[in-house]
């Protein structure tokens, strides 16, 4: 309350002096619109310079651009965005820009069309241009030579418009001559085509061939994929304007985040990256060598363009970030599209707007810019630009020759131009194409195949010949070429059957994709051969999982009889993929005979049987755990899954349940906990004494005591009620036991629990609720009411009541009665959440004038603020809320203040709370993590995943409440609050709070104080921090925005005397043995670095050093850093110098 009380007082004073223009909130932040102001604010990669190619009024708020084969740039602009006003004309336009004298500046501009409604893509070709016009794709054409469209045809319609920054967008000619198009989350599209209806509900990518009028969905998901680039071999990479996983490798039927109903999704290649709009491979002679082949992705929030380097990895790629191409301090610089130009320069479309989109900021906010727009051109000093060629003037031979141009744009434009020519003249010219020096002949052969497809005269023979290439990329590309029309191709099955056993996993991935297109019986039995002989990575695994499901009608009936696959392993993969009890006996006998015995496979079987098997099958598993020589890993896996079968499917193994009791004696905590849960689920009365004594021994082992709660509650009856009642009331019980007893009683009977709770809460040490009493009430429908009632005439100390108010205020059920009761019981004034316009005005002024972002970061990182638990910055932090990496450059300051004070006011897309209420009154709030036929998995605000049986669900609604609790900032002084806002407002802007592209290790775990360290460090040195001691507790610890790891902020691990250490460890995955390069910086004299158990010598008296670790065995490497506090130690940075092909970060969840 501190802050709000003082804030109220300050604001009264401030109000008197406040500016009158309250409706102009923040307008003073509007950046200078002059071109020169933007030019001065750019920072470029070495050797680059930037010039203005075009600007308003020719382009205003450009949304997309593409080149035509004459070397002219087509730009589509939408000042109408975000929403048409009643009475407003549909006047958005497409302009053709031309640099006629080659000076790098557009000197001619023609309005090709001026009657569009929020157009979001333009693609010249076929003698006109294809334009995304909200609900429809238009083909506009000029027939009289004035470059103004005079013919208008709707070529596709039925695209959704539920959100205008998600409309159909990102048009691109593919190398095979199809038009590729993307749509985003919330968009529900229903196309009628001459081939039938095609629907895409949510994000995804389409391809469309104008001459056949065939449109199909290629992949699904991603939140806002406004970037698509083909690499030299025709593989597709997407970027996402709202996801945060950098570059996404996509392939047919791949499914990514937020695709509705998806039971499995793939991830991007750069988790924790800023969001991007646009994507382009940098190619061509004008560019410096070190940029060639990189993929550029504009970070429109951070006003910069990121670069990534892709490296082959299994069936997919790894991607690592390298230094930015360009960045700007100018807040209206919004790079939203990037294209290589016909002169070899890089062109950037700058949407130009201080406000980035329309979710959070009012449609009619006057700060929206609806006039300006810029096209920037980036060139390099060392090389001349290329002359712009008009490909439409070339004869067929010269045009074919352009297919070997070093510039990808020229190759693509040559293909587009070929579509305007007679195939009879073009194809012979293409056939005679020679192989330039230094170019893989198979790449040239592939270009010929693409030319044939571009003319819709697919040369299948040439594609098949490429399957014998030595280069796996050529083989994969050949399969992709075959893929599109595989259903009409009699050879396709034979082709895929051969390719499925290809030595390279990416070729197998495409073989599976081809199979998925076929209407023959053998698709899945053929595809499953892909699991043998290569490492099954996530992408190939996904493709196989997908075909097993999509084509289940082709193999399931056979599998009921006998295994139709070549091995039990393949069978297990397939039955798990469909998640149905098919061939259970075959699998179980393989388990019985020991044919299947690896921990992973046993876990897989247990998981599958628990989801699909019969009580007899569960008993088979149970018997497996009871064997004398059963491994604890198997026991653990099976008991866990028996518990979920009991909970989700309400089924139990046949046979004597008392066999379970032996596990209640287990020394293994996990096995005990699972057995305790099962005892309750199975109503095993004989287990009660064991559960009871573990409950009472909570002080020795809290985890076991927690685990007994479920069991004791399920066993229920007077004995359990009596136990909870007496422990909650007993004077000798610890607060932990009391809390657990209240929780237990509340779950049995909320009213009875509430009566107990009041006194326990009144005596809560430090006014805290560490063991979840409030949560127990909020987790059930009757709970809040019961607690409110019990509080009617009671008093609570303010701190514990405040905790309750915060928890209740962020509960999706909105228990207002409980909030009021808590406020009354502690005489709390309702928290002031909203600021008046004038208060907001002065707060924003304070942020601008006196806010200290460095101190703000410290506030942000305080454990009591809990920011880091939910929000990451550049991948460092929790995943419950949005990554804040560039929030400052995308959100206005008033938005940030509102969001801190009133989290429910604006909720980021994808972060809505779903409230699931069960028939028994229990409720779960959080984000839906995934679902299948039987269960729904909800991730709550603590990151915990709750598996909920669908059969038990009474209702499932999107709640208007944010998962972020209000009042988190109530503990702050006003100056601290101002600093926190100043910090958030700087995030992503040029300066100290923009995450650098360096590969700093950002996810760490820090060691909690432990009794062992004080004495053992003297004997064994720092190596004790690398020991695998079970009772060591490692908590998540994240790097600061700069990448620095502040050792003084870590828990203080006690050493000898007054020595206090900060200790952190991390894990990275190294792909091959040999030297791996790191850089470490900080006060190296006082730092200890360990690789595994080995201490690495650091040079003395320097502040940074490059070090090489010798990796003997590829795989996980543990790196530990420790430092003695009190000697001026501050931040330590550990940077990986090798790219992601060699060293990959491991997510903290996997540590």
């Amino acid at each position: 309350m501190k802050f709000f009380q003082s804030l109220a007082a300050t604001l009264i004073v401030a109000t008197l002096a406040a500016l009158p223009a309250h409706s102009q909130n923040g307008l003073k932040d509007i950046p200078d619109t002059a071109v020169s102001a933007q030019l001065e604010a750019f920072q470029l990669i070495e050797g680059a310079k930037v010039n203005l190619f075009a600007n308003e009024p020719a382009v205003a708020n450009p949304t997309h651009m593409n080149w035509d084969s004459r070397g002219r740039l087509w730009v589509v602009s939408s000042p109408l965005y975000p929403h048409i006003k009643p009475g407003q004309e549909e006047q958005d336009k497409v302009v053709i820009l031309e640099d006629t004298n080659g000076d790098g500046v557009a000197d001619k501009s023609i309005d090709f069309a001026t009657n569009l409604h929020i157009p979001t893509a333009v693609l010249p070709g076929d003698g006109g241009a294809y334009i995304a016009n909200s609900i429809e794709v238009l083909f506009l054409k000029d027939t009289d030579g004035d470059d103004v469209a005079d013919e208008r045809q709707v070529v596709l319609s039925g695209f959704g418009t539920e959100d205008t920054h998600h409309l159909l967008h990102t048009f691109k000619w593919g190398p095979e001559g199809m038009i590729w198009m993307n749509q985003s989350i919330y968009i529900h599209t229903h196309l009628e085509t001459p081939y039938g209806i095609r629907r895409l509900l949510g994000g995804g990518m389409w391809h469309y061939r104008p001459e056949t009028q065939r449109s199909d969905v290629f992949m699904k998901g991603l939140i806002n994929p406004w970037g698509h680039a083909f690499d030299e071999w025709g593989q597709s990479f997407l970027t996402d304007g709202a996801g945060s996983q950098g570059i996404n490798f996509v392939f047919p039927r791949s499914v990514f985040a937020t695709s509705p109903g998806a039971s499995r999704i793939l991830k991007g290649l750069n988790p924790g990256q800023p969001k991007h709009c646009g994507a382009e491979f940098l190619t061509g002679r004008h560019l410096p060598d070190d940029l060639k082949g990189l993929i550029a992705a504009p970070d429109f929030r951070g006003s910069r363009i990121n670069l990534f380097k892709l490296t082959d990895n299994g069936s997919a790629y790894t991607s690592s970030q390298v230094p930015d191409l360009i960045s700007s301090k100018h807040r209206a610089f919004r790079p939203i599209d990037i294209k290589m130009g016909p002169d070899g320069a890089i062109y950037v479309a700058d949407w130009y707007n201080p406000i980035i989109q329309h979710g959070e900021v009012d449609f009619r906010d006057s700060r929206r810019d609806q006039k300006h727009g810029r096209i920037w051109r980036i060139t390099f000093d060392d090389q001349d630009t290329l002359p712009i060629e008009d490909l439409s003037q070339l004869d067929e031979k010269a045009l074919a020759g352009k297919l070997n141009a070093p510039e990808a744009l020229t190759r693509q434009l040559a293909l587009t131009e070929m579509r305007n020519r007679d195939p009879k003249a073009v194809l012979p010219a293409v056939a005679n194409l020679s192989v330039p020096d230094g170019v893989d002949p198979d790449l040239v052969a592939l270009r010929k195949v693409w030319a044939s497809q571009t003319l819709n005269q697919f040369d299948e023979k040439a594609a098949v010949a490429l399957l014998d290439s030595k280069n796996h990329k050529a083989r994969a590309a050949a399969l992709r070429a075959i893929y599109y029309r595989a259903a009409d191709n009699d050879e396709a099955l034979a082709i895929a059957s051969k390719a499925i056993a290809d030595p390279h996993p990416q070729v197998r991935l495409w073989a599976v994709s081809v199979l998925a297109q076929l209407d023959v019986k053998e698709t899945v039995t053929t595809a499953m051969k892909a699991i043998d002989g290569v490492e099954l990575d996530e992408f190939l695994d996904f493709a196989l999982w997908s075909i097993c499901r999509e084509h289940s009608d082709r193999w399931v009936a056979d599998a009921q009889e006998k295994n139709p696959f070549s091995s039990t392993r393949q069978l297990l993969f397939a039955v798990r993929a469909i998640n149905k009890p098919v061939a259970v006996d075959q699998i179980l006998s393989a388990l019985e005979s020991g044919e299947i015995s690896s921990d992973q496979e046993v876990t897989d079987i247990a998981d599958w049987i628990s989801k699909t098997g019969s009580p007899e099958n569960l008993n088979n598993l149970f018997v497996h755990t009871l064997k004398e020589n059963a491994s604890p890993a198997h026991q653990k896996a099976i008991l866990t899954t028996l518990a979920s079968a009991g909970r989700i499917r309400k089924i139990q193994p046949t046979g004597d349940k008392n066999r379970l009791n032996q596990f209640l004696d287990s020394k293994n905590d996990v096995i005990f906990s699972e057995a305790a849960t099962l005892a309750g689920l199975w109503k095993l009365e004989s287990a009660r004494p064991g559960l009871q004594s573990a409950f009472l021994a909570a002080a020795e082992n809290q985890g076991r005591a927690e685990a007994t709660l479920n069991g004791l509650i399920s066993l229920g009856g007077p004995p359990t009620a009596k136990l909870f009642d007496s422990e909650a009331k007993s004077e000798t019980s610890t607060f932990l036991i009391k809390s657990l007893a209240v929780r237990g009683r509340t779950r049995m009977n909320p009213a009875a629990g509430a009566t107990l709770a009041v006194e326990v809460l009144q005596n809560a040490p430090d006014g805290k609720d560490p063991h979840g009493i409030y949560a127990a009430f909020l987790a059930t429908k009757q709970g809040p009411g019961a607690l409110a009632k019990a509080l009617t005439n009671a008093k609570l100390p303010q701190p514990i009541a405040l905790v309750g108010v915060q928890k209740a205020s962020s509960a999706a059920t909105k228990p207002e009665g409980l909030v009021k009761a808590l406020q009354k019981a502690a005489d709390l004034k309702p928290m002031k959440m909203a600021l008046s316009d004038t208060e907001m005005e002065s707060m924003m002024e304070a942020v601008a004038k006196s806010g200290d972002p460095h101190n703000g970061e410290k506030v942000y990182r305080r454990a009591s603020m809990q920011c880091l638990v939910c929000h990451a910055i550049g991948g460092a932090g929790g995943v419950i809320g949005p990554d804040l990496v560039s929030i400052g450059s995308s959100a206005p300051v008033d938005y940030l203040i509102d969001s801190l004070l009133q989290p429910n006011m604006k909720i980021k897309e994808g972060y809505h709370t779903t409230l699931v209420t069960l028939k028994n009154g229990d409720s779960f709030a959080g984000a839906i993590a995934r679902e299948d036929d039987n269960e729904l998995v909800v991730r709550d605000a603590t990151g915990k995943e709750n598996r909920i049986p669908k059969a038990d669900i009474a209702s499932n609604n999107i709640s208007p409440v944010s998962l972020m609790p209000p009042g988190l900032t109530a503990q702050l002084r006003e100056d601290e609050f101002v600093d926190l806002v100043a910090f958030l407002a700087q995030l992503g802007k040029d300066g100290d709070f923009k995450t650098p592209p360096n590969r700093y290790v950002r996810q760490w775990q820090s060691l909690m104080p432990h009794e062992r360290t004080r004495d053992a460090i003297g004997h064994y040195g720092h190596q004790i921090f690398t020991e695998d001691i079970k009772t060591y507790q490692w908590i998540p610890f994240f790097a600061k925005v700069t990448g620095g790891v502040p050792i003084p902020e870590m828990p203080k691990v006690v050493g000898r005397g007054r020595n206090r250490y900060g200790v952190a460890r991390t894990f990275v995955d190294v792909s091959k043995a040999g030297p791996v390069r790191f850089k470490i910086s900080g006060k190296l004299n006082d730092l200890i670095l360990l690789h595994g158990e080995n201490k690495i010598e650091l040079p003395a008296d320097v502040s940074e050093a490059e070090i090489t670790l010798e990796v003997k065995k590829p795989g996980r490497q543990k790196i530990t850093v420790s430092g003695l506090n009190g000697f001026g130690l501050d931040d330590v940075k550990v940077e990986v110098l090798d790219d992601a092909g060699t060293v990959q970060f491991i997510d903290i969840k996997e540590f």
Partner: protein
Amino acid sequence: MKPISLRITLWCLALSHAALAYGAEPILKSGDRVALVGNTVIERARLSGQLEAALQLAAGPEVKNISIRNLGWSGDSVFGDSRSYFGPPQEGRERLVSIVSEIKPQVIFLCYGTGAAMSVDQGWTDEPIHKEPSASGMEGSLATFSQGYQEKIDRLRSAAGGSLREIVLVSPPPLENLGEPLPDQTENNARLAIFRDRIKQLATDNQLSFVDWFAALGGDDFNGEVASPALTNNGLHYSKSGYQILGRELVKGLGYGETSTIANDETPELVASIIEKNRLFFHRWRPANETYLFLFRKHEQGQNAKEIPMFDPLIAEQEKNIEAARQKVFAGQPKN
């Protein structure tokens, strides 16, 4: 579709308004509100204005102020598959019911069946209990279609309320074979004929008017030949001249006899105001940004939902223009 092209050439361009069959009650009356409901063939009709112009002119000079609302939606099924946003088809049906109960039309035209006929064996609805039956061969598909259509008729009838006079079932028009590389639609047309028969049966069972676009455009005589110039852009989507024929055959089927649909370049004002009215009405009933204005993100932009009804006076203004334009057409027309 050869017969069509013949008919076009034989077609008299004279402007003559509806000549109703003797004794028949005209379907359109002054002040009528008319709802056009269906899939893409209806939805796209709003762009050329031809279909509405045909109705407006067929009604004749004495009938005034007909207000037509195009509620077509690409890919829609009888279950409302296209009309739901984030929910199941049920939500789509409710959306249609809600707009129909708002408009309270006197006449409703329904045109469904293309999607179902083209998706035999593949399934054409996500409606949970009908998903599988819709994929189980011609019989299953037809039965599911009839059931869904019957429910739709019943619900729309009650949604429209007491002012409703007529529901007209219109069969889907045939598909055209435009030759390689476009697909051959012969098989789909054979299926469409079967669906047409079922729709006709539904009309009889429910005592509704029925207009057979399929037969009128030559679907029954279809031998793979196509009108020249083609009536569709791709075999499926009708072009402006295609809609002219569809309009003409619609009013003929309604009993207006051999009337001219003329709603072409000779009536530019009428067509232009119809197109403009349709554009405005689209922003009114299917506004962009629904997620923010009315659905689960309305706490962010719901304040702007107030703008949406501001389209109403603009639409009313265009309706006046439509009426003025049609009266002008009638005024310039020689008396019979």
